[in-house]
C-alpha cells in the first residue's frame, strides 16, 4: 500500500468530498436557518391563496389596475423573492464558508493531508452546496407553484413547462452566485460582509442604471432567463422597462458559464496555494 501511486483525478476526488460533505451541510445549523427562510414564500403563498379563496379571485383585478393571473404572481415571486433575494442569500452564506467552515471546525487538516488535490476539496464542497441548496429550494418552489398558479383560475398544466425553466434558472443562479462567493470566501477577508454588499448593494444599484457596469453582476444575466410576463403599467415598471437591457438567452448562458468556470478556477488556485493556520 505504500508503493508509489498517483493521486485520484480531480473529479473523482471532488465527488468523494461531495459525498463526505453533503450530509454535514444538509444538517448544519445554517441549513436549518435558511430552510426557515425558504418557508417565508410558502407562508406568503398560503396567505395569497387563502385570500383568493375568501374573495373568489375578484381582488386580483385590482393589482396595478390590470388582471393578474396566478402564473404572473408566481413569476413575480420567482424573480423578486427567489432570484433577487433567496438565491443570493444562499450563495453568500454557503459559498463564502465552503472552506472557512472546515477551517473554523479544524477538520480541514483531515482533508488536506489526503492524497487528493486541495482544489478537489473546494470543488467537492461547491458541488455539495449546489445539491444542498437545490434540495432546500426545490420543495419551497414546488409548494408555492401549486398554491399560487391556480389563483384567479390559472392552469397548473399550462404553467408547468415554465416551472421547469424556473428550476433551471434557479439552478443557474445558485451555481453562479455560489461560485462567485466561493471566490470571495477564499480570497478576501471578511467575505460575508463583502458578499452581502455585492449581492444587496452593488447588484441592485448598478442594475437601475444604463451602462456597462451591470455586466459585472450575476443578476443581469439571470434576468434574461426569466420567462414570466410582469405587469408593466406602473410608473416604476415603465421606467425600469426603458432602462432594461436584457442580453439574449444564449449570451446569458455563456456569460454565466464563464462566471462559474472563472471564479471556481480562481478560487481553486487560492486554495492550492494558501496556508491555513488553525488557531490552537
Amino acid at each position: 500500500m505504500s508503493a508509489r501511486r498517483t493521486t485520484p483525478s480531480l473529479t473523482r476526488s471532488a465527488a468523494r468530498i461531495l459525498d463526505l460533505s453533503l450530509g454535514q451541510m444538509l444538517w448544519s445549523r445554517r441549513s436549518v436557518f435558511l430552510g426557515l427562510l425558504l418557508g417565508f414564500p410558502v407562508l406568503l403563498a398560503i396567505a395569497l391563496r387563502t385570500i383568493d379563496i375568501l374573495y373568489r379571485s375578484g381582488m386580483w383585478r385590482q393589482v396595478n389596475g390590470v388582471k393578474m393571473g396566478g402564473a404572473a404572481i408566481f413569476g413575480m415571486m420567482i424573480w423578486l423573492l427567489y432570484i433577487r433575494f433567496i438565491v443570493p442569500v444562499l450563495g453568500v452564506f454557503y459559498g463564502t464558508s465552503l472552506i472557512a467552515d472546515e477551517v473554523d471546525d479544524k477538520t480541514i487538516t483531515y482533508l488536506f493531508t489526503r492524497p487528493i488535490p486541495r482544489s478537489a476539496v473546494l470543488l467537492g464542497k461547491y458541488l455539495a452546496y449546489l445539491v444542498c441548496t437545490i434540495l432546500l429550494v426545490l420543495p419551497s418552489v414546488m409548494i408555492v407553484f401549486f398554491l399560487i398558479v391556480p389563483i384567479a383560475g390559472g392552469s397548473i398544466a399550462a404553467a408547468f413547462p415554465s416551472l421547469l425553466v424556473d428550476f433551471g434558472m434557479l439552478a443557474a443562479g445558485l451555481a453562479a452566485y455560489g461560485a462567485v462567493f466561493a471566490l470571495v470566501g477564499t480570497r478576501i477577508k471578511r467575505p460575508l460582509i463583502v458578499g452581502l454588499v455585492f449581492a444587496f448593494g452593488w447588484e441592485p444599484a448598478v442594475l437601475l442604471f444604463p451602462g456597462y457596469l451591470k455586466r459585472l453582476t450575476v443578476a443581469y444575466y439571470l434576468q434574461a432567463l426569466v420567462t414570466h410576463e410582469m405587469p408593466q403599467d406602473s410608473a416604476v415598471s415603465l421606467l425600469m422597462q426603458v432602462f432594461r437591457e436584457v442580453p439574449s438567452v444564449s449570451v446569458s448562458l455563456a456569460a454565466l458559464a464563464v462566471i462559474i468556470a472563472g471564479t471556481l478556477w480562481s478560487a481553486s488556485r487560492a486554495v492550492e496555494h494558501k496556508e491555513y493556520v488553525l488557531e490552537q
Partner: protein
Amino acid sequence: MNASAPVVGAEHLSKWYGQVIGLNDVTLSVPPGITGLLGPNGAGKSTFMKLITGQLKPSKGSVTVLGEPIWGNPALYFRIGFCPEQDAFYERMTGLEWVTALARLNGLSESDAAATARRGLEMVDLLDAADKKIGAYSKGMRQRVKMAQALAHEPQLLILDEPLSGMDPIMRRKTIRMIKEWGRAGKSIIVSSHILHEIESMTANILLINQGRILAEGNVHQIRDLIDEHPHTVYIKADQTRALARAFLAHDDVLSLRFEDQAVVVQTGRPDAFYARLTDLAASGELGAIHEVTSPDDNLQAVFQYLVKT
C-alpha cells in the same frame, strides 16, 4: 528510498507568522523508527508537525519527507498518516463512516475503504464502538479514532501530534504499547508530546525543541552526554550534611551548594569525579551515614527541564 535513509530531513528550516517566529533555522534528519518530539507548549512542535505534514509552507529553507518535498505534493499522503492534535470531527458521523470516508479519499473503493476502516479501528481497539456516533465518544475514544484514520491505510510514516492527550492511564499504557508495536512492525513514527515520560516510554530517540529551535537530537545516552557537559545536580540525604558540604567545597568542580531538609544539593561541573569521591566518603563512613543519593538529572524529565531552561 533505502531503509536507513532519513524519513524527515530539514535544511535551515524556518517558519514565521508575520512577526512571530514559529521555527528558527532548524537543520535535522529524523531516522527511521520511533522518534519523539519534545517541547513545552509554544516550543514550535505544532509548527514543525504542520511543516512536515505539508499544511504549512516553509518561510525559509526546505523540508523533505520520505525523500520528497511535502508542500504541494499530495501523492506523498499515500505514505503518510497524520493524527492531529485538535479534537475536531464530523460529530454526526459514526467512527466507521468517518474513517471509511477518509480512506475513500485515498482512492479506495467503498468496500475496500470500509474494510480498511474496520482494520484501522480494530488496531486501536475501537471496533466495538465503530457504529456509534463520534459525538458520543469519550475523549479517549476520540483520540483513538483519530489514530485509526491515520493508520488505516497502512502508511510508511505515522505522524502523531500529542496522541496521548486526554487519555486515562490505562488507555495511555495501551496506546504506548500500540505505538511501540507499530514501530517494531517497521513503521516510522514521529510522536510529539510535552510530557517526557510519555516519550521516554516509547523511544530513546528524541528531538528536544524549544523557542523554535532544536535543542538536542539523538538517543537518550547522547543527550545525557550533552547534559554532562553542563552543571549536574546531585541530591544527598545524610546525617551530617554540613560536614559533607565542607568536604565538597574543598574541590573546585563543585559549583554551588544548598541545604534542604536533612539533605544537601550539590551542583558539579564534573559529575564522574564527584561521584567517585562521594562513593569513597560513603564507604569510609568518616562523615556519618549517607542515606540517599539521587540526581534530578537521572531521569529524562529533568534532562528536558534542564535543557529548556538554558
